[in-house]
């Protein structure tokens, strides 16, 4: 029924991005909730425990197994995503540039409850900042995770973060940033449901790129 699309016909979210997005969503949920199960045995913030209904894994051993299984999906998927994003220029196209006056403008507009989302293909400055923040937090999770998993083999990574216990704090802080992002991200997606549909079906078609692929040198 659908008309044959030319290969150059670009969607806001190409199939590869959509697949990686949902794999990442599942992997992150596994990593966060199993991480909470591991956390409970030796808390970082006194008095902060995660209740059973939020934890993945019957007890610590299974939370550990979930965490060390999920890490492959989170890590490999994330690595492919970053490689894809850099190679196709998508990250640069979607997330850059960020101008300070645009950030101020978006914040002011948001405070006036003006959340413009008519055009899904353009991310506002705060959106761009948040996406960059969550990518950085994810890289932090991978590096600190690697350091916690193999503190002897990657001992230089451990000292880079200031010792084993401070790696744990960085790993915890990265989780807090990601959970904060997920809450805002899901809330806004629910407020503007067509964004969810776009991540499932591909979203609106994009104009031809101004510059040819790989504009970044």
């Amino acid at each position: 029924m659908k008309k044959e699309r030319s290969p150059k016909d670009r969607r806001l979210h190409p199939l590869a991005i959509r697949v990686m997005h949902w794999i990442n969503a599942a992997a992150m949920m596994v990593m966060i909730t199993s991480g909470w199960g591991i956390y409970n045995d030796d808390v970082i913030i006194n008095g902060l425990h995660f209740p059973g209904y939020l934890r993945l894994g019957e007890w610590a051993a299974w939370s550990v197994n979930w965490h060390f299984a999920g890490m492959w999906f989170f890590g490999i998927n994330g690595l492919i995503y970053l490689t894809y994003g850099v190679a196709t220029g998508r990250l640069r196209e979607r997330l850059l540039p960020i101008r300070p006056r645009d950030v101020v403008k978006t914040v002011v507009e948001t405070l006036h409850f003006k959340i413009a989302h008519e055009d899904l293909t353009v991310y506002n400055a705060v959106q761009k900042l948040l996406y960059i923040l969550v990518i950085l937090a994810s890289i932090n999770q991978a590096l600190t995770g690697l350091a916690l998993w193999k503190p002897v083999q990657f001992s230089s990574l451990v000292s880079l973060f200031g010792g084993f216990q401070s790696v744990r704090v960085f790993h915890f802080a990265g989780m807090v940033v990601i959970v904060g992002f997920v809450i805002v991200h899901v809330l806004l997606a629910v407020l503007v449901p067509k964004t969810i549909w776009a991540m499932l079906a591909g979203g609106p078609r994009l104009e031809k790129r101004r510059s040819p692929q790989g504009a970044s040198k």
Partner: protein
Amino acid sequence: MTKSPFRPDDAPDASVLDMHRTLIRTLERRGLLRAGLTLGSLVMLTGCDVKRPEAVEEALLAISNLNDRVQALLFDANKLAPTYPASMILRPPKFNAYYDVTDVKPVNGATWKLELGGLIQNKRPWTLQDLQALPQRSIVIKHICVEGWSYIGGWTGVPLRTFLERTGADLRAKYVAFQTADNYPSSIDMAAALHPQTVLALQYGGQPLADPFGFPVRLRTAVKLGYKNPKWITAIEVTNTYPGGFWESKGFPWFAGM
């Protein structure tokens, strides 16, 4: 005395795991990779298959087994764990076991003997004096528990490599297994056993081990998590048959390398 945080609130029935362990251990690496790539296993990872939780546990143990192999590949026999000055040694060390410190049953060093088994030429039992007469090595290393806590400890004892060489152990065997007076079977891979920072510790901070910390002999290795360091060792076996361990039989990963 509060309950050891290392002990689960209610220990799960390990028999199910033991039942499937042979099956899991014989799974082919390629088969694991292939199985790991199916949509079905992805669904299991999301925890959606709630009707058959044992299938989820089997999948997790299969991945855990794969992780053990990856860890063995990552292990660098020449890479030393960071060491620390003696002034940083925590005194006394942190106690941990699957029971409270008040339940520790001291071992009599005068009658204690270390039995040997498996692929070892000279299986003559060892006394504490015999071990003390062997070359000793002191290491100040970090003890890291799978739970997350850590402390710096100073250990003196016989390098396990020295002991295995002296007794004529088959150094090409896969595993070195330990039996203990507190019924805490444990085992490590041969590569970790031969690492220079793996010792049969007799002393802590220059003093003989105190009772709660494994007198007369315990294992201390800088390349494994805390639960791979059995205390009150009574027997050592060198084997090619997977020996398992106390926490491993309850679901924790076996390799647990750092």
